């Protein structure tokens, strides 16, 4: 299933991760901490997605909006940019009671999370001083 944003691929121009933020966390605290943080994020988001999914299925506007909002906070903290953008879009759609588009965006959120999980599984594998992509962000 795919979603669109003004006819463009969704969401337009937003990378998966802010690699710079992850590097900063590793530098400011430690690599071990970053690995722990990522593990916490993945398990926490997985749980929140389940609740969000239930709320959307049951068309519970307030709950669904609150879960989508909370997801954004977690994603923003770690620099998981695209997941955050999709969650934000979902919150907006839910608040408009646009359930058709909400279902599609929820599905996009799920697939984005699967992608994020895969990307984040490599965190901690490369040395701390390994060069980052020029943009500082992972595609």
């Amino acid at each position, binding site marked *: 299933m795919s979603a669109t944003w003004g006819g463009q691929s969704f969401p337009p121009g937003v990378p998966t991760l802010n690699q710079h933020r992850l590097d900063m966390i590793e530098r400011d605290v430690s690599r071990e901490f970053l690995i722990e943080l990522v593990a*916490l994020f993945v398990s*926490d988001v997985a749980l929140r997605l389940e609740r969000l999914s239930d709320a959307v299925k049951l068309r519970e506007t307030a709950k669904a909006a609150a879960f989508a909002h909370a997801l954004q906070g977690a994603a923003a903290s770690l620099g998981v940019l695209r997941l955050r953008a999709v969650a934000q879009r979902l919150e907006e759609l839910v608040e408009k009671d646009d359930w058709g588009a909400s279902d599609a965006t929820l599905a996009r959120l799920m697939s984005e999370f699967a992608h994020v999980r895969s990307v984040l599984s490599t965190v901690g594998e490369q040395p701390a001083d390994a060069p980052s992509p020029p943009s500082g962000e992972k595609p």
Partner: protein
Amino acid sequence: MTQHATNPDANDPAFEILPNTADVVALVEDDATTRMLTRAWLQSAGYTVLEYDSERSVREATGPAPTVACVDLGLGEHSGFDVIKQLRERDAELPIIVVTAEREVDTAVAAMRAGAYDYLTKPVDRDRLLLSVRRACERRRLVDRVKNLQSELATGPLTGTVVGAGGAMRELSRQVERVIESDVAVCLLGESGTGKELVARAIHSGGPRRSGPFVAINCAAIPASLQESELFGHERGAFTGATQTRLGCFERARGGTLLLDEVGEMSPATQAVLLRTLQERTVRRVGGSQEVPVDVRIVCATHRDLRGEVDAGRFREDLYFRLVVYPIQLPPLRDRVEDIPTLVTHFLEKLRGRAQHAVRGLSAEALDALARHPWPGNVRELENVIHRSVLACRGQEIGLADLPPDLRSTSTPADRERQTGEDLLGDDDQVVTLRELEQRAIRKALRLTRGSVGRAAKLLGIGRATLYRRLAELDVAPEAVGRIVA
């Protein structure tokens, strides 16, 4: 999760560079990832972190009181405002940093209006977070310090004696504290009207001699010929008019404190007797032969530069070293204008009991005029001004028009000085009586010398005793004139 406190690793290099590891940050955040990251940043900067994941965990918290709180405004079902309210109820001075999503800036503004110290938007930047927390901790320490000082002052040796809580008065309070318990010879230095006698009384009533008497003698107000008799007493028949034996100040102050006010005005003969008395700890009444032991704490006071008087040969150096062991300088009112509003309130309250007035305060213009005045007569002059203004005031607020004319004027003290001199003879069509003229000249001399009779006498070209006589005849009090610009 409910709550737990975590400490940074003391081996962490970041721990060593941090200023204050005693600071505790309450972190209220329902998102586990954000909370874990924020906690790590704060710990790496040396803070102890108390974590709370809900409004309930804050409500049920029993841990140590935080220095600062970081509160996420979007706390699930509960508003961060509820948490702010709870934290504030427990600690009204707690600086609270609110954290909110970018698009909820309006909420952050509302939080600031509700008294939040700062706000951060998500995703929180580490440096911004640590800067804000550091500043909040500094502010907290400052607030705590001010409160401690206020509390110190409220229970300090000058409580109920000297009014004012500014820096100068706090320093004075600290100095008095240092000497209060011992019998060290204290010399209070300060201009006329700065409260030297009040401080002397505070030293007496706060120390171990509080149950004994407090006796004050103003050496400037007693002619040289009577000083010895006043201080040391006299036997019956010691001199003409000594119809009975009379105890002097030393004997009356036995077991207590004797204030030798304006000690710089003491005659050389009396200085010699005083020195002997201090050395021997006994007094011999004028006309007597018996040595009477006295146990008295001596506090002296002067508006003069006593060291300068020694250098000029007018004050005995050996006596100077006996009397001035611990000098305490009292600040003039012009150096503590921040205390004027408190003093005004104090005097209005004091006058309420005597004058039954309805005055509640001063207008901003009147207060401004008081702040600009140089106050040569210090607090005593201010009390006099407030008394006169209360009598002139017909409403509940003393306005500029109710103040004495010299305070209403926008002219400088130098202008007023010139003007006063020109007015000495009155207007062209006015004849001033010789008595009035003499009174004005004496008043001016006293004002210029800030109430020093000796120096005023010199300016007037007469002897000190003559001036004392004229003051009595003309019903002029030197202390009062020295502080009022007539």
